């Protein structure tokens, strides 16, 4: 029965699939696929999965009634350990915010797009407008504070205990940029 195979195909496909592709995969005519999709829509009535036509193709989705439970099950903060690149990027954003993307790269001595993207994806940092030269600015998020157990960014630990040259009186930002350029 073709509705069954269609259900399996749409279940597996991550994106909407056009009728023509379904017909190719099943080695049947497009008309049979269309009829099969009708039958599938009927079979899915009252089930947890719904059939939708989207963006030129067909796809399966979860029933909206299950959304709240799905959020409880799946939308948990992802907190794998930070890689060294992510920790450095996050510390620069946390201590200097708002800080521009080029500044982060200057301090770290390497482009930091992928670290910044991972931190953004996990909701630890976010864009905070643009610098006067149009560069993206970053700041930390409320989720960042929560995941680090901080009430505000003023609660960040004093970097002095890890500071290799604490006698330097210049501002943190200038010192980081200077050190970054010396390394670069």
């Amino acid at each position, binding site marked *: 029965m073709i509705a069954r195979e269609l259900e399996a195909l749409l279940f597996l496909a991550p994106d909407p699939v056009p009728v023509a592709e379904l017909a190719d995969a099943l080695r049947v005519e497009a008309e049979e696929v269309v009829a099969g999709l009708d039958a599938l829509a009927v079979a899915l009535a009252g089930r947890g999965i719904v059939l939708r036509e989207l963006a030129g193709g067909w796809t399966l989705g979860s029933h909206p009634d299950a959304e709240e439970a799905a959020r409880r099950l799946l*939308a948990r903060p992802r907190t794998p350990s*930070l890689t060294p690149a992510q920790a450095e990027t996050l510390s620069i954003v946390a201590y200097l915010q708002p800080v521009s993307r080029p500044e982060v790269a200057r301090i770290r001595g390497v482009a930091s797009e992928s670290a910044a993207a991972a931190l953004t994806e996990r909701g630890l940092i976010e864009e905070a407008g643009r610098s*006067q030269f149009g560069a*993206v600015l970053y700041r930390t998020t409320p*989720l960042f504070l929560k995941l680090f157990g901080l009430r505000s960014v003023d609660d960040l630990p004093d970097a002095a205990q890890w500071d290799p040259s604490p006698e330097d009186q210049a501002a943190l930002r200038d010192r980081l940029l200077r050190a970054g350029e010396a390394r670069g």
Partner: protein
Amino acid sequence: MASDAVHLELDLDVFAGPFDLLLSLILREELDLLEVELAEIVLAYLDHLGARGELDLEAATEFLVLIAALLELKSRLMLPGEELEELDELAPGEAAEELLERLLAYARFRGAGADLAARREAEQGVLYRSAPLPPALRRAPLEQAEQAYEPAILGQALGSLLRTPPALDLRHIATPRVSLPERLAVLRGLLRRGTFAFDEAVRGADRMTEAVTLYALLELYKRGEAAWEQDASFGPVTVHARSSAGVTGAVA
């Protein structure tokens, strides 16, 4: 049990006779296993199979088990130290028992392995979804978040970034030196105005400085800080601060 393998007639550098005689000589340590070229036995067996023109699976399996056990014994013999002593202490009867133990353990896992391989083949029919979560489910709600990281990792990371490597001692180098950071600083100074002519950055400079300045400009481009325009070949180059939003030209 089939005994095809043990009757295999061998003609090796160090031994001529049936395979089971070779086995027993090895087990009784009358023949040094280290001197037996096991590959020769395998080749002889393959010839023997070829000559027979049919494959007795049970016999072939038995041969494989025996040869695997010999290989293992040999590799152990080649290892110095306690393993060797342990083996030396074994009387021939014990060595046979040991070999038997190995053969049995091996037979067990060979069977289990074949079962796993078959299980995998059977399971290939079922495919699983690997679609990303819908966007609404990708971000965790704030209320659910609990502390997962120590703030100290940020302080440590920042401390390491404050470390300046010791400056290289370049006094012994006679050639005038232009540093990239220095030229980067010059370009960044000019960039604060939003736009400037490249000529301005290298006015009165030597060729080395010009080259390093050009390199610095490329570096700024790579880092997304600057871009430039040049209307004609060898014409003036206008450098401007770059924005990822695509804003071009001067920004006051």
